[in-house]
C-alpha cells in the first residue's frame, strides 16, 4: 500500500515541478535510462522530478547501506519517508538505511570528529557549512541545477561557496522572532521594542532576550549597521562591510538606554527560560527560536502571539532589528561508501514531498518554493513571522568560529549594570574591540 502511495505521490510531484519551475528541470519523463551518461558540467546530474532521479544515477551501486542523521523529533517521519524512497526505486536493493537521532546543531562537529563512522546523509544548521567545506568532508550537490530551481534563492545562495552548491536546502526557518503573550502585549505593540517593554513592565512581567549568546547578541551589531559579508580570502577571517560609526554607536546607546530604563523587565536569560516563563506567567514577551515554537505554543495556548522582531527608536527613526538567520541543509558525507545513493537520498529528503510533510507534521518552514506557497505555510503566524524576519536578517553562513564569543560579549556589555548608556566613547571602543576580536586581530 505504502509503495503504491509513494509512486502515486511521485507521479503527482512530476506534474507540479513542471508547473513550478517553468521548464527548468529535466523534461524527459523517466524510466527509459537512455540519457544516463549525459551530465552537464555546471548543473550536475539530471533529475526526473522534484523528488526522484533516474535510477541510472545510482551507477553500479547496489546492496546499498546508508546511515541518515536527523534531529530526534524528525526521526519517525524520516523513517516513513525512507520507506517511500525505497519503494520509489524498486530496481535497487537497500540492505539497510538506518536513521539515527543527531541534533542539527552539532552534526558538523560529529562528522568532523570521524567522518568514516558518521552518517552518509545528514541534517545540519547552516553555520557549520564553511567548516565542513574547509575540511572537505561534505560532498557538493550532484543535482545543483534542479535544486537551485526548486528552492528559494536565499537558501541556495547561502549554500553556495566558491560557486559550488554544497548542500540540499531543507528548511528556511532557522531563526528567532518575537513571541508574546497576547494578554500582555497587543499585536500592535509587538511592532516596537519600546511598546513591548512598556506593556511588559505595566503588567509586571519580564521580557527575555538572550544577549549573552552570540547567536542573539549579534542582533545589536547588525541593527547598528555592522554587517558581515562572508569570509576573507584565508577562509577563516570574518569580513565586515563598512559601517557608519557614529550611527552605529548611537544605535548601541539606544539599546543600552532602553535596557537600563527597563531594568527588571528586560532580562538577559537563556532561551530555555522562555517557555517556562510563559507557563508560570512571569513573562510577557521574549525573543525565541523556531525550534522552541512548540513549547511556547504549549505554554501560551490561545494567547500565543508571534511577530517579526520589533523596531527600536534611534533619534526619532524606528529601526528594524536585524537578526541572524539560518537555514537547515541536508548534506552528503564525502567519505560515503555509496556516494551516488547518498546523493539520491539527500535529493529525495530535501525534495518537495518531504518538505511538505515536514511542514505539515513538524511545522518546519520549507525552502522549496512550491511548498512555501501552500496553506500550511501561508496561514501559519509563526511561519509568517519567521519569513518577515528573514527579510531583515544577516545570513548565518560563512561565520568564523571566533564570531560568537565577542558578539555575546557585546550583548552582555549593553545590558550590564555598570555600563553607562551615555558614554559614547565606551560604545565606540566596545564596537571596535568586538570587530577586532571577531577578526582575531592581534
Amino acid at each position, binding site marked *: 500500500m505504502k509503495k503504491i502511495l509513494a509512486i502515486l505521490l511521485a507521479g503527482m510531484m512530476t506534474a507540479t515541478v513542471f508547473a513550478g519551475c517553468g521548464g527548468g528541470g529535466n523534461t524527459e519523463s523517466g524510466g527509459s535510462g537512455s540519457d544516463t551518461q549525459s551530465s552537464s558540467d555546471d548543473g550536475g546530474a539530471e533529475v526526473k522530478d522534484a523528488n526522484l532521479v533516474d535510477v541510472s544515477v545510482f551507477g553500479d551501486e547496489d546492496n546499498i547501506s546508508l546511515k541518515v542523521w536527523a534531529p530526534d523529533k524528525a526521526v519517525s517521519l524520516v523513517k516513513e519517508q525512507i520507506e517511500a524512497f525505497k519503494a520509489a526505486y524498486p530496481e535497487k536493493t537497500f540492505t539497510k538505511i538506518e536513521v539515527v537521532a*543527531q541534533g542539527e546543531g552539532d552534526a558538523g562537529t560529529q562528522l568532523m570528529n570521524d567522518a568514516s563512522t558518521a552518517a552518509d546523509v545528514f541534517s545540519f544548521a547552516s553555520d557549520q557549512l564553511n567548516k565542513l567545506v574547509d575540511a572537505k568532508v561534505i560532498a557538493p550537490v550532484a543535482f545543483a541545477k534542479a535544486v537551485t530551481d526548486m528552492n528559494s534563492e536565499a537558501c541556495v545562495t547561502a549554500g553556495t561557496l566558491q560557486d559550488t552548491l554544497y548542500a540540499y536546502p531543507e528548511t528556511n526557518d532557522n531563526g528567532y522572532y518575537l513571541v508574546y503573550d497576547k494578554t500582555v502585549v497587543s499585536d500592535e505593540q509587538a511592532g516596537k521594542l519600546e511598546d513591548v517593554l512598556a506593556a511588559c513592565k505595566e503588567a509586571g512581567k519580564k521580557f527575555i532576550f538572550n544577549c549573552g549568546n552570540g547567536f542573539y547578541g549579534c542582533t545589536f551589531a547588525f541593527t547598528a549597521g555592522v554587517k558581515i559579508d562572508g569570509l576573507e580570502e584565508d577562509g577563516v577571517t570574518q569580513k565586515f562591510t563598512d559601517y557608519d560609526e557614529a550611527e552605529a554607536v548611537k544605535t548601541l546607546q539606544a539599546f543600552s538606554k532602553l535596557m537600563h530604563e527597563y531594568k527588571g523587565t528586560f532580562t538577559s536569560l537563556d532561551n530555555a527560560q522562555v*517557555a517556562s516563563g510563559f507557563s508560570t506567567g512571569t513573562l510577557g514577551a521574549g525573543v525565541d527560536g523556531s525550534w522552541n515554537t512548540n*513549547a511556547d505554543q504549549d505554554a501560551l495556548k490561545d494567547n500565543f502571539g508571534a511577530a517579526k522582531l520589533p523596531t527600536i527608536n534611534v533619534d526619532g527613526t524606528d529601526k528594524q532589528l536585524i537578526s541572524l538567520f539560518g537555514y537547515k541543509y541536508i548534506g552528503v558525507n564525502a567519505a560515503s561508501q555509496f556516494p551516488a545513493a547518498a546523493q539520491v537520498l539527500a535529493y529525495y529528503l530535501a525534495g518537495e514531498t518531504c518538505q511538505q510533510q515536514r511542514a505539515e507534521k513538524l511545522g518546519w518552514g520549507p525552502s522549496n518554493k512550491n511548498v512555501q506557497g501552500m496553506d500550511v505555510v501561508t496561514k501559519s503566524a509563526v511561519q509568517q513571522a519567521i519569513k518577515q524576519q528573514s527579510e531583515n536578517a544577516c545570513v548565518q553562513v560563512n561565520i568564523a568560529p571566533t564570531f560568537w564569543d565577542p558578539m555575546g560579549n557585546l550583548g552582555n556589555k549593553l545590558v550590564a549594570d555598570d555600563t553607562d548608556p551615555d558614554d559614547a566613547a565606551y560604545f565606540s571602543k566596545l564596537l571596535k574591540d568586538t570587530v577586532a576580536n571577531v577578526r582575531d586581530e592581534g
Partner: protein
Amino acid sequence: MIKSYKFRRRIANFFIYLLLAILGIIWVSPFVYLVMHSFRAESMTTVPYLIPHEWTFDNYIKLFTSAGSSSINFPRWFINTFVVAIFSCIISTISVLAVSYTFSRLRFGARKKLMNVAMILGMFPGFMTMIAIYYLLKAMGLNQNLIALVICYSSGAGLGFQISKGFFDTIPRALDEAATIDGATRNQIFWKIILPMSKPIVVYTVLTSFIGPWCDFILAKIIMGDKRELYTVAIGLQSMVSAEFINEYYKQFLAGSVMVAIPITTLFLIMQRYYVEGVTAGGVKG
C-alpha cells in the same frame, strides 16, 4: 568551678550544633531542591519559586518509558553506565593495588624514577589527547563500544597509586619478613597477607573508580559519537539539557539525576567508614 566549666562546654556545644545544622541545611538544600523539582508537574524548565505547586510521579514514569518514542533511553543508559562502572572498577582496583604494592614493598632499580613519572603523568590537561585516544581505539576496532569506555576509565588508574601506597607503607614490614622466612613468595605475601589487611583501601579504590563513569560527559561523548543507545547516563543527562531537548526533558533530567544519585549515595553511606579509614591511612603517608 567545675559546674561552670561544664556549663560553658554546653553552651559551646549548643553553638556547634546550631552551626552544624545551618551548614548541613546549606549543603543539603541543592539536593532537596533537585528532589522536589523532580516531582514537579507544572512548567517546563526552571520556575521562579522554591516549592513546586503541583506534584507528580510523571517525570519518573516518563523517564523509564519514553525509550521507544525518542532517542532518550534512560534505562539503557543506566545499565550501560552500571556495567562500565563495574568492569572499570574491577580493572582499576587491580591496577592500583598492583602498582601501589610494587612501589611500597618491592625494591628495584627504576622504582623512584617510575614513581616520579607516574606522579606527573596525570597532570597533563587531557582534552586534546581525547581525539588521539579515539583514533587509537578505532585502530583496535573498539570505537563506539562500551569496552572502549572501560579501557579509558581504567587505563590511567595505576597513576593514582599514592594514597594506597601510603596505606601499604603503614603495614609493618615485619609481617613480610616473617612470611619470607616461612618460605612464602612475594606473590603469596601479596594475596594472603597484604590484601586481607587492606579492606579500607580496597573499598576506597572501588568507590572512587566506580563513581568516575557516572560523571564523565566529555570523553564518553567523543567515543560514542552518534551511538545513542550506548551512551552513559552522564552524556545522556547532558544531552537532555541541550537546546534541542531542554524544554521537553528538563524535569526528566532532574528525575534522572536523582536516579543517578541514589546508587552513589547508598554506596557512600554503606562504605563511608572504610572510605574514611582508607583515605586517612593513605593520606598520612601519601
